[in-house]
């Protein structure tokens, strides 16, 4: 299916699109904008709230113009009060709304932890299932241009630790649109993390409204020699690595995890049973991260199928530095994945 394909860059996609005149292309940012727009149009319980959601930039273009179409009550700017505004969104959700709350940077979310961990995540269980929190919190990972330690963190592991939350990280425009709708209608609090470097990526995005299921990964590239699980932006690096490795006769299977919690363990285990080798490429730090969790699950359920120790590709264990020279050394890419896969093959 064309929409499950990952395109490394715009030129590659446009070349493909020329051969498929029936399909439409959108960028990741346009896909998110269209998803929000369609839900605002069809459901009065949906509203968007967050710092600057109605400004001219519109959260990197993902909410641009929505306030003009739907009014400032439904696309609501907020004071710089991340914790309370998160709690306000939780309360509105409990009272029957479906808020899409935007925290422009993941780095602002540590300010909201009381409302997310103590309230949103607990509100269903703690009251015996009598209430629920249909809330989506969109947040964005920055990278590069000296964004440094407080504007480029990848904190998915923090949220994935908490029972009661779901954590989604789509990598393609098709999934961005479909997972945003699935998250809004999931009925549970969903942390929806976007990587800024994905916004310009293009892919097939149908105009009609649709959902992509939460909790399901997808095989982006079938292969037989090693399984590479990529998360968010690292899916693209994994695809690049797979192409390069193919040149050396190594055939990788690339899985796009898409949802961190609940995790599609079955898909990964099926793949590892076939390949016997596993590399996880995540956008965040290594310790206690999704890679740790994935490898543990494989060890618990398919240890006998592993032909070599599993490997992780992550950020080094320090905050993000600002200098371009240090940034270059900080961020792993396709070359690191190539090297990790080769290690699993004893090369």
């Amino acid at each position: 299916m064309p929409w499950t394909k990952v395109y490394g860059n715009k030129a590659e996609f446009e070349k493909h699109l020329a051969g498929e005149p029936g399909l439409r292309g959108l960028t990741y940012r346009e896909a998110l904008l269209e998803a929000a727009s369609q839900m605002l149009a069809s459901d009065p319980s949906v509203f968007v709230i967050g710092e600057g959601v109605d400004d001219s930039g519109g959260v990197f273009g993902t909410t641009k113009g929505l306030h003009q179409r739907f009014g400032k009550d439904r696309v609501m700017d907020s004071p710089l009060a991340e914790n309370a505004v998160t709690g306000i969104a939780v309360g509105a959700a409990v009272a029957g709304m479906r808020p899409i709350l935007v925290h422009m940077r993941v780095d602002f979310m540590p300010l909201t932890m009381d409302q997310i961990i103590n309230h949103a995540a607990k509100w269903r269980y703690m009251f015996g299932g009598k209430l629920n929190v249909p809330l989506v919190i969109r947040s964005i990972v920055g990278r590069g241009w000296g964004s440094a330690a407080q504007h480029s963190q990848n904190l998915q592991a923090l949220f994935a630790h908490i029972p009661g939350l779901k954590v989604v990280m789509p990598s393609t425009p098709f999934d961005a649109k479909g997972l945003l709708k699935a998250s809004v209608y999931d009925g549970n609090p969903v942390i929806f993390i976007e990587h800024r470097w994905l916004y310009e990526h293009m892919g097939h995005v149908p105009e009609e409204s649709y959902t992509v299921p939460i909790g399901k990964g997808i095989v982006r590239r079938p292969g037989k020699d090693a399984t590479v699980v990529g998360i968010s932006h690292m899916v693209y690096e994994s695809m690049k690595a797979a192409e390069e490795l193919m040149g050396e006769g190594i055939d990788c299977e690339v899985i796009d995890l898409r949802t961190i919690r609940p995790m599609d363990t079955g898909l990964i285990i099926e793949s590892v049973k076939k390949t016997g080798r596993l590399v996880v490429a995540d956008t965040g730090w290594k310790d206690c991260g999704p890679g740790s969790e994935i490898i543990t699950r494989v060890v618990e359920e398919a240890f006998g199928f592993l032909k070599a120790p599993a490997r992780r590709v992550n950020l080094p264990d320090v905050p993000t530095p600002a200098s371009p020279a240090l940034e270059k050394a900080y961020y792993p890419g396709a070359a690191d994945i190539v090297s990790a896969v080769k290690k699993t093959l004893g090369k």
Partner: protein
Amino acid sequence: MRKELLKYGMQTLTKNILDRMYASMLRIRMFEEKIVELYPEQEMKCPVHLCIGQEAIAAGVCLNLKKDDYVFSNHRGHGHCLAKGSPMRPLFAEFYGKATGCSKGKGGSMHLVDAERGILGTSAIVGGGIPMGVGASLASMLKNEERVTAIFFGDGAYDEGAFYESFNFASLKKLPVVFVCENNFYATNSHQSARQPGCRISDTAAAFDAHGVCVDGNDVIAVYKAARDSVSRAARGGGPSLIEAKTYRWKGHVGPEADFDKGSRPKEELDYWVERCPVKAFRAFLLEKNVTTPKEMDEVASAIKAEIDDAVSFARASPYPEAKELLEDLYI
């Protein structure tokens, strides 16, 4: 009696409403005293935060609310639920950890819920319920509902950033919400003067371009009047109000015992406030003004006693949750 009520500007208060104030306060008092009586049996295996001494605030505020108005409460929340009309059975059953509890035994005394009566859950993180209450009132505004939200919190929550962030938002959006600060002067054992330089909580409202009022929280008519003004202001689009109601908790922060003998607070302070018992004072007022007869009062007390006995028997006889319940209710 009309003359007495003039000082509140409430000379039109009827016997019916005055009797309901008394009944509501007494119901809370007797409920809490039953917990004091039964708690040493150690069959209620959860922390309890009692509101004995503070009943006038819950009663005075909630008598101004409709059934579908929202209430957000805190760890010391029994009185708020009772005043909002919650039946006793699911509350006692929750304290006993039973499957018939309002939260199916998963919440305990600090996490009460009664969605049917607008109690959309109770947070035991100090100040944590305040943003959620504002969010519920935002939902009412967005849905064009004629619904007011009352948020109860203590003077400890006034220390929290969540209060200021939330109050600012509520005033900015002119939300139909009433902030009720039950100022009992203590956050656990820490006195207000050790935590706040000004001790003028209600004055804060002015800085947020909203209405603030400080009342005697042991005077149920004064609380009722402040709440009536605030609820009607909220309902007509006038935005939030901050009611500071000064009161005193007779028991320790948690548990059924007083805490002066542990050195937490001076005994004279407790004695001063026990003299100003909100239930006793209002009872004397009603009798003196011939509003209510002792016989009527006895009937009210008997009915409450019967309700309590029934609820306790129900809670004791109810089953515990089954083990399979452990993993249920996490996600919808």
